[in-house]
């Protein structure tokens, strides 16, 4: 047997060994992720209505739900609301998380304590966050509203005013999740070697120049990853809306997953709700892929 043939045989055995090692994980993933996704998509091709079980396997008009969605103004409105919510919360969380991470990127006792304190909102269950802020937004019992009234600046209810309801959700969502981006930014900042920073300072770089030309290139990848995580998570901003506004007043805070929830759980129209969910999964996937491609192209240009 030649040396080349032996190498090929060893490589094949190694690939098989890797595959054997990965198989349990792949099987679990297929069972827990892919199978439900396939079922979701299959259901979206039916008019499944829970009160009519025979509709579960009715594939006579597989495109009907998607055509119906195309003509449903409440769905397109919910996508627009979702877009506003996701864009603003992700930008605010990144900005706030980065700003505080820069402030805390020094090892002193007080800053270590502050770091732990800032993490509290993130570790609270979302439903608890919702209830906490529900109290804060209820005018006649809220300490915030009472304090504002006491200093002569009374504020009306933020969650029942259509011009502020969505921004109240944005504020709470940002409060809850900026610690996540802060943690990621802190980790990225601590990976930056001291030498380029010192060299830039010796060369007379100011704080802004230091950030723009030295620090930012180091943390850019972490920033993109944090943005992706938060973007995907923002699409799931359900508990806050459920507790704080119930999608209202009217439908000004009715994001896409809330609309799907109403169709499924209030009206029992699971086929239609599955079509909405399928489009949400596809949209999130395409968006993540596009961001990844864009940042990859930018990296290639820099290199």
């Amino acid at each position, binding site marked *: 047997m030649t040396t080349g043939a032996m190498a090929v045989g060893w490589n094949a055995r190694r690939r098989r060994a890797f595959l054997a090692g990965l198989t349990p994980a792949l099987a679990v993933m297929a069972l827990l992720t892919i199978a439900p996704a396939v079922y979701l998509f299959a259901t979206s091709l039916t008019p499944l209505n829970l*009160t009519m079980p025979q509709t579960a396997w009715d594939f006579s008009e597989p495109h009907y739900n998607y055509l119906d969605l195309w003509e449903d103004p*409440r769905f397109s409105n919910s996508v627009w609301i979702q877009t506003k919510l996701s864009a603003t919360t992700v930008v605010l969380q990144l900005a706030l998380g980065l700003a505080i991470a820069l402030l805390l990127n020094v090892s002193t006792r007080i800053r270590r304590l502050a770091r732990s304190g800032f993490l509290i909102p993130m570790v609270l269950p979302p439903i608890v966050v919702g209830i906490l802020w529900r109290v804060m937004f209820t005018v006649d019992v809220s300490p915030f509203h009472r304090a504002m009234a006491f200093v002569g600046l009374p504020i009306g209810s933020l969650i029942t005013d259509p011009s502020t309801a969505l921004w109240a959700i944005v504020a709470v969502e940002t409060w809850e999740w900026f610690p996540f981006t802060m943690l990621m930014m802190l980790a990225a900042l601590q990976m930056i070697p001291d030498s380029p920073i010192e060299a830039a300072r010796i060369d007379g770089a100011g704080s802004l120049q230091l950030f723009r030309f030295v620090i930012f290139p180091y943390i850019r990848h972490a920033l993109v990853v944090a943005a992706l995580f938060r973007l995907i998570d923002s699409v799931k901003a359900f508990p806050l809306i459920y507790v704080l506004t119930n999608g209202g007043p009217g*439908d000004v805070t009715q994001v896409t997953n809330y609309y799907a929830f109403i169709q499924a759980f209030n*009206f029992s129209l699971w086929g239609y709700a599955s079509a909405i969910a399928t489009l949400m999964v596809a949209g999130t996937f395409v968006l993540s892929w596009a961001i990844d491609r864009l940042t990859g192209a930018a990296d290639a240009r820099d290199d």
Partner: protein
Amino acid sequence: MAKETTPRSGRISRRTVLTAAAASAGSSLVFGIGTAPAQVGQNRPFQGTTLNVSCWSAPYPRFLADYIPEFTEQTGIRVNYDTPGFPIYNQRVDLELSTRGSAFDVLNITFIFTSRWIGAGWFTPLEPYINDRNKTPAGWDFSDFLAGAVAPLRDRNNVVHGVPWIADAFMSGCSRFDIIRAAGMGMPDTFDELERMCATVHNRDGVPAFVTENHFGWTWIAFLQGFGGNVFRNPPDDLMPTLDTPEAVAAAEFFAKLVRDYGPEGALSYNYDAVVAALRGGRVNYSSNNQAFLTQMGEAGSRVAATSNYSIFPKGPAGRFPGVGVHGWGIPAGSRNKDAAWEFIKWSMSKELLTRIVREKGYGAITRQSILDAPFFKERMTINGVDIAKIYADTINLAAAGYMRYRTVHVYPQVNTQITQAIERVVSRQMGARESLRQAQTNSIADLRRAGVRLQ
């Protein structure tokens, strides 16, 4: 707000057992019924069975939690009991029932889901239990339940699927009648008087005049019908929504003015718990809502117990249409403990236990005629000289005309959502009443067609 209640199984004091036994014996004497008050010491065929029971959070199911240890003591049946909030309960149960799962043994049949849940065959017919003397003694007397309350729990063939634990009447109540009286006014009897009263007393003593629950698919309908409108053209046969009629527009404008101009700040966020808390605390004055909620103003612990007042719901230009909501216990088709589940329903709806709940907790939304007629009930249900039992009986009688049919059609949840959103848009000035209701009408038609309803 959701509230979970767990009975303290196995922690019954001797005093509790003695009190329970004495009260049961006393009730039996009052009603002349020979049903065994307790099976303690007797054969317990369901010993060791565990029942999963759930109902939305309302006064009766909350009160019932205190008595469940006695049921366990009598029958040997353990009960996992929970009472989540109304929307959470409905969503959870709708999904569970649709799978015909066995997770629950006894469930509340929610009024707006009666047609859907019973019509789909998701609940067990109860006649085999009610009519079997081995399972139900004659003294339990199913015919004692109000016919109007049992009606929504029957299917198209008139078969009973639930035992009504509440026939809740929509009425009016105020927390600070002293303010209204000082203004030289009484409880309003017409919509015009209601508006005049609100305009006169709003923010007197710092108390906003009006508040109502933000479930407008319930609280607005009495106004809609009072103005001569309805939800559907001719329910349950013709389900074409009629949300954009001139009567509906007038009702929405009137109602929105009450909520917006005479309500507390953030009135749109008040669910039933918040309404009751605000009324009991004297933070708002007048409300139209369920009797079971409003009468909590007169209970011990309420800051307004001495100043609360009550009346039948006012009449509008087209008449008086106070809502009546019926909820009942049923056994899910998928339950594996149906006989034990019936034991629970039988016990929880017995004259003896209901009598105790009225006497000990002040519960008033009773569905048994014999209790409604009992002198002690009238006495217990008189608050500050107002005969609540009469308001209740008058309201139930009014509803016998059939104007609540809109609520028992299987697609009402769809229209309910549209109504709530439409009224929110009007109250928050996003849209005028006409435009908002036209949108609700369009959306309702789309939702009903999507659900397979043929509209003409």
